[in-house]
């Protein structure tokens, strides 16, 4: 099974390493070649370039990919690249990181698998506060 990871920051690099260890054929794409250092002793593929570049996507072999993770630092880049991977290249499993909760919901309703770390953080933070043994003072307003 082949996976392409677009955006090789902390998140992308860790996902790439995990999948590689589980036996996936993994290629990473990042504009910055120093992103390679995050991968350590990397034996998978690496393409230097921007995901908003069809040539780079072709070189990373997205046409043959079974899965793609899009986690660059730009929400809109991720949204656009994710849709292109689905519609132009027919990648079956595309997961896209979107920080903005509303944009994440909007595109999730349109068939893009979005992961929103902001929503997760909000829910977790609020849950922890609720689980603390503290009683709210008064009523809101």
């Amino acid at each position, binding site marked *: 099974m082949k996976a392409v990871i677009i955006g090789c920051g902390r998140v992308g690099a860790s996902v790439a390493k995990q999948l590689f260890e589980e036996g996936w054929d993994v290629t990473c794409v990042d504009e910055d070649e120093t992103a390679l250092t995050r991968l350590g002793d990397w034996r998978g593929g690496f393409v230097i370039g921007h995901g*908003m*570049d*069809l040539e780079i996507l072709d070189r990373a072999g997205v046409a043959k990919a079974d899965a793609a993770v899009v986690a660059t630092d*730009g*929400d*809109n*880049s991720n*949204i*656009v690249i994710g*849709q*292109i991977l689905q*519609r*132009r290249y027919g990648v079956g499993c595309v997961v896209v990181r979107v920080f*903005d909760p*509303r*944009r994440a919901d*909007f595109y999730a309703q*349109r068939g893009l698998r979005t992961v929103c770390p902001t929503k997760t953080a909000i829910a977790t933070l609020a849950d922890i506060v609720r689980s603390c043994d503290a009683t709210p003072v008064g009523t809101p307003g």
Partner: protein
Amino acid sequence: MYAIVAGGGKVGANITRSLVRMGHEVTLVEQRRDRFEQLEAELGPIVLQGDATELHVLERAGIARPPEIVLAVTGDDEDNVVISQLAKEGYGVRKAIARVNDPRNQPYFDVLGITQTVCATSGLLGLVEHEVPEHGLVKLLELRGEGLELVELLVPPDAPAAGKRVAGIALPRRRQARLGDAPGRG
């Protein structure tokens, strides 16, 4: 008419000025603080500061009315794609026109269904091709949505097709071409 212009660079600012002069209602959205202040000083309260790819900013700009037209003319192609999609698919805006900054990004707009795009570089290249035509074909107009292209071809007087109507010429039917005679220039 109500229009939302996303992106207050040279293009967005000039379109806004023209639309206002024509008597239209416009909201111009600009993200950068310094540029926003400049535009607000000139154009007044029709300028809104914010990221036009954020739904709450678009809502403050009145996207839910909805406007007759949204012009996505920021300097980032991915932002222009997203603005057009949010407007059309999210709020039922009938017409969204997007600026393509890098002509290599045109396929992204095409694949994602953003049919009305304007690319200055491609436009200029078209003009150059008009001066130095390739294969004798001069591109006149491309109608992407309709899958049509208007081209000009000069038929030499001794060619078999000379003096005939286009409909009367046997052409290969590889693609179902719709042909029409243009008013000749000689």
